[in-house]
């Protein structure tokens, strides 16, 4: 188990593409650290530099206090789990899991004990004598994980390991991974483009865009206080509402008069963009006090909640409501802001300015 330091990392490919501009990160011992971003943002390149599969142009990778820049991937004592499972098809699950220990020449009794423990934690006991092709995708994924676990590496590195699974299994495996990581206490660095997965899994999340770090924070920090418009848009579904507002009479006011609680530190007349989550708005009957008139564009009843899109004077807004909300499509309604001061952004720089 180990902490991981990334110091001044830069990666430029021979064709001149800059995958990572300049990155400083500290991943704590035992942390489940998620790197999140769209494809091409530099998250996988960062992971590959940590793993030793890619050599950075400059900067250092430090694992467990040791600079590993000159160590090969196999010398770094970390386990990589990929999107695809890469199991040996002619071997049983047991032999697949035991493989790294056999390769190290460990005694049989020790190997058997390690495989049994991994199988118990991953609930693979009934499957140990099967070959991969007789397993479901999720079961294969668990075997791949078992093979990584038995080595007891200093860290697990995972590159979108759940991407190819169907939605139901993905949700199950997400829960299992989170539980397992906590139980093992092993540092894990996890790459994904799926913001729901990032939120659910990570102790902290690093959001990347174009080779730069936009924000590092806990899931709730990233959700409630996005550091930039990019981070605000990337996390959350339905998407955050971004309102052009001006500070007047102590509140942020959008076109048409929708009033939003102002954070400290703004001056009268300041124009900013307020980021309001769909649950930061509520719908009321038309004419309600402290609200602006709007019309329902669409209504998506999802069972446990209903998502509205309404047309308001300041544009289309997403509003999260309980399943009992009575407003039909085309109905006139009123929209009111609720909750504490939202994060606000400078339109030109896209960065958070106060709050």
């Amino acid at each position, binding site marked *: 188990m180990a902490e991981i330091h990334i110091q001044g990392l830069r990666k430029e490919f021979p064709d001149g593409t800059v995958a990572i501009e300049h990155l400083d990160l500290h991943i704590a011992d035992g942390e489940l650290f998620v790197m999140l971003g769209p494809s091409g943002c530099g998250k996988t390149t960062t992971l590959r530099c940590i793993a030793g599969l890619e050599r950075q142009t400059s900067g250092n990778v430090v694992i467990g206090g040791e600079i590993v820049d000159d160590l090969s991937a196999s010398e770094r004592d970390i386990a990589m789990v990929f999107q695809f499972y890469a199991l040996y098809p002619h071997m049983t699950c047991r032999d697949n899991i035991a493989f790294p220990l056999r390769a190290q020449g460990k005694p049989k009794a020790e190997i058997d004990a390690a495989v049994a423990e991994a199988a118990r934690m991953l609930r693979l006991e009934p499957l140990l004598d099967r070959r991969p092709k007789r397993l479901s995708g999720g079961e294969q994924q668990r075997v791949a994980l078992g093979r990584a676990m038995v080595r007891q590496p200093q860290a697990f590195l995972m590159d979108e390991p759940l991407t190819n699974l169907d939605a139901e299994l993905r*949700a199950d495996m997400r829960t299992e991974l989170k539980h397992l990581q906590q139980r093992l206490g092993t540092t894990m660095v996890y790459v994904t483009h799926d913001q729901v997965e990032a939120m659910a899994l990570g102790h902290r999340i690093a959001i990347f865009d174009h080779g730069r770090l936009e924000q590092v924070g806990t899931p709730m920090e990233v959700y409630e206080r996005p550091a930039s418009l990019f981070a605000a848009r990337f996390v959350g579904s339905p998407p955050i509402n971004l309102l052009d507002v001006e500070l007047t009479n102590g509140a942020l006011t959008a076109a048409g008069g929708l009033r939003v609680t102002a954070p400290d530190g703004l001056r009268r007349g300041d124009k900013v963009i307020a980021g309001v989550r769909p649950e930061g708005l509520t719908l009321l009957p038309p004419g309600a006090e402290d609200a602006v008139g709007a019309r329902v564009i669409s209504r998506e009843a999802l069972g446990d909640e209903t998502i509205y899109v309404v047309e308001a004077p300041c544009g289309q807004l997403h509003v999260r409501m309980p399943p009992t909300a009575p407003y039909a499509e*085309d109905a006139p309604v009123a929209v009111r802001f609720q909750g504490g001061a939202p994060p606000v952004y400078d339109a030109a720089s896209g960065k958070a300015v106060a709050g």
Partner: protein
Amino acid sequence: MNTIRATGVSKSFGDVQALDGLELEVPTGSFFVLLGPSGAGKTTTLRVLAGLEKPDSGTVEIDGIDATGATPAARDLAMVFQSYALYPKQTAAQNIASPLRARKLPKDEIERQVRRVAELLRIERLLDRKPAQMSGGEQQRVALGRALVREPRAFLMDEPLTNLDLKLRVEMRTELTRIHRSLGRTFLYVTNDQVEAMSMADQVAVLRQGRIQQVGTPAHVYDRPVNRWVASFVGSPRMNFVACEARDGRLAGDGWDLPNPGFAVDEGRPLTLGVRAEDLSLDRRDETASLTGTVYATEPLGDRTLVDVEVGSGRLQVKAPPRVALEMGEPITVAVDLDRVHLFDAATEEALSR
């Protein structure tokens, strides 16, 4: 009045039975969603209805008239596929106009129709672009435009949003609902995504292994699933299931028991309790009945946190407020909304009534 009605439709490919006595009534003007996992027979159903595939047995009626042997053209239904299949060398306007040109309509009439459709889809600014200059979502709209311009009896859509990214898919759901409302035509929409079904359908038919499991409004299917399979397929997160049996007026499982809220079941019969994450709560004030367990994992999602709780040998996912702070292994009490629990026969998996 039904636009489309299928009665006893069966269809096999070799020894694979794709459809097994399918019964379907698509009301005129409805947004009707056929929901099922891949391999359930959804696409075969669409192809049989469109006349692209001949059923082994059963009949298809369109507007009340037997159309089982009718050609696709005579049925006057428009298909929209998940691949856009646009002509790459033609502009959006030319692509949309192609069915009208094939019918040799006068030029100014074609232009008028293309403009009308472009306005409805809000793609006026794309009309002079070629497919390569458009995003996936824009291409999808143009493909839709080409179907709309024909003014057919009904639109059959085969997972048209599958290839779009999440943000665009969410946006197109809103768009399709709006377009359906302004056209007032019948939409028969096939998908494996229960969120699409829940969010867009007037009526949803859940299909499994070539058989309709349940037909109803999305709320009805969500609140009153007829069997465990439907209960598990509809809703996200998936409904929780734990094994139990009736004992002394209570429902008892491994490490828990709850008052029986009125299900008439024999003692000792193997049962499965089903309960959705939002009908469980960590707030003791909600308590009408409760279970105790330990925290297995917590998954913050921003607007809520999913808490996985180990209860006996089972596991339950609870929808909790966003800022709940819990440690793995911590003992916890889960309140259960007994009015909202479901009970299934463990062997047949059919829902039991109260």
